[in-house]
């Protein structure tokens, strides 16, 4: 697979936590190539290193050993400014919604657009309203998070991650708080973005129903990549 078709390429990736005698290896020799536009699900038991891998690929942690090429940029020894610029091309969906309590649903989503620079207010307002409508929140645009249910908050967080048309979406159990119908619509939306815009999604989940929709399933155990099933 040529590099230009890849969103992510990890080679001989190792990672440790702690120092001295308490130093513990969390990832072992991870080699991974993820094609642009694919919908990848990562599974594995707790403590298997899924989240660590997600944070390394999302340039939220420093690469200690090995190499990660994200959207054509090497993350090893990347500067803070390079990491910040690269993160603007990603969409993060966290297990906890992490919405800003003082901002309405629409304003929280606008934060995902604003990071890319100044935009016409009307255009960005419409884009935020559009993505929230797609996620079934057209009636809740101006609600504060405190007035939304858990599932609604998570959908706002998903909207915030997707509104800026990210090149890569990194998601950690994003559908845990959603009913199946909503979860399925979110997965369909992510897959549709992959087809239409080449958005790559790497999702950690334990939901077996989502596994059925994945293009590829990666399995991690004890910090090692033990399974890589291509379902396309």
């Amino acid at each position, binding site marked *: 697979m040529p590099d230009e078709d890849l969103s992510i390429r990890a080679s001989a990736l190792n990672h440790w936590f702690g120092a001295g005698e308490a130093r513990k290896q969390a990832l072992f020799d991870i080699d991974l190539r993820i094609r642009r536009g694919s919908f990848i699900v990562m599974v594995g038991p707790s403590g298997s290193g899924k989240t660590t891998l*997600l944070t390394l690929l999302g340039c*939220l942690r420093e690469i200690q050993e090995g190499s990660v090429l994200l959207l054509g940029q090497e993350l090893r020894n990347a500067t803070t400014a390079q990491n910040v610029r690269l*993160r603007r091309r990603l969409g*993060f969906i*966290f297990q906890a919604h992490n919405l*800003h309590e003082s901002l309405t649903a629409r*304003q929280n989503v606008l934060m995902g657009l*604003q990071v890319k620079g100044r935009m016409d207010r009307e255009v960005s307002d419409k884009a935020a309203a559009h993505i929230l409508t797609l996620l079934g929140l057209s009636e809740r645009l101006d609600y*504060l998070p405190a007035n939304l249910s858990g599932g609604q908050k998570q959908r706002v967080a998903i909207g*915030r991650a997707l509104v800026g048309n990210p090149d890569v979406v990194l998601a950690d159990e994003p559908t845990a708080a959603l009913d199946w119908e909503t979860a399925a619509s979110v997965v369909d939306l992510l897959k549709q973005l992959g087809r239409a815009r080449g958005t790559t999604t790497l999702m950690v989940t334990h939901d077996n129903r989502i596994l059925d929709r994945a293009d590829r399933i990666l399995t991690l155990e004890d910090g090692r990549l033990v399974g890589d099933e291509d379902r396309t």
Partner: protein
Amino acid sequence: MSRLLTRLLGRLPIGWLQLVHQRGRFAAALSGVAFANVLVFVQLGLMSSMGVSTLRPYQFFQGDILISAADANTLTDGGNVARQWMLQALADPDVVDGMGLFVAMVPWDRGETDISLTTFGIDPFRTAFLAPEIAADIDVLQVQDAAILDRLARGLTQEEAAAIRLQTPLSFETQGRTLTAYDTFAGGGGFVGDGYLLVSDQTFLSLFPARSSGAPDHILLRLRPGAQPDAVVDRLKTLIADPTLRIRSYADAMDEEVRFQQTQRPTGVIFGFGVLIGVLVGIVIVFQVLSADVADHLREYATFKAMGYGQGFFLGVVVEEAVILGVLGFIPGVIAGWGILTLMAKVTTLPLFISFGMAVTVFIGTVVFSALSGMIATRRLAAADPADLF
């Protein structure tokens, strides 16, 4: 407000939205900033009134050069000056006239309250040395034991002051003599005395028999029009080479006394420290509020970091909050400060007020120091690690 800030900042006004989201904390923060402003305004008002009241007696006279004793830091202290130096100074071609100025405090038993008047003994025939308002009525001082009384003196009611006329003078006992006030002028209470009294030099000497007509407290000189006071001062210092004398232009004497009162006298130093404490209180309050606010939003800030927002954005948000607190806290601060100073002015008759310059200075200081507090508070943002979000 939200729309205006969005327009100004070119982004969502997160700082403003965060502040108004927690209204209780916002109100407490504004009260804190307002309180600090009140502290600063009251102290500055006192300092400024010290300057104004210090200069007040200088405005009773008109002169170009003042000769005083070397230890005379103010109009009311220091030793005497031999009149012979006035005659010596008149030898300078630019000096056209001179007048000895006597100064002493005179007590006035007003029954329940005793007041103390700063009394100037002047030559009633040298009207050119007096401010026009005083010069117009100075003839009465040619009568022995006649006086012109400060109508704004503490302890003197407005009705009493208004009743003082040539036909209805006010007599009072002091220094074992009976003085009669035939007219009034506008002075006002200060930090040294409760008001002022003008008498002739002859009346002054009869009030203070130990004083000598040949040794006034100061010598006032007038120069010919167009003469440079500084140049004449330099010449006089050569002509009168007496180290026990202080020869200054009248303008320099005023500046030096204000500086002395504000930086050397305990009251001035105390007011100066009061201003400093007000500023520190303001900084601590704004820092505490913003620091707590940053700590409360660490998870949200970490999320923004993960999304690609840089340090400049966070600094902008916290400084935005700081500036809002500074601006909005200033408004009740200036109103309360004005009210307190007005009340204090009524009670003390001191010239206490908030000048436009003072208000602008405090406003700029409030905003700058609030912004500085905000910048310090952003150090806590280092604890917002986006990797911890997963």
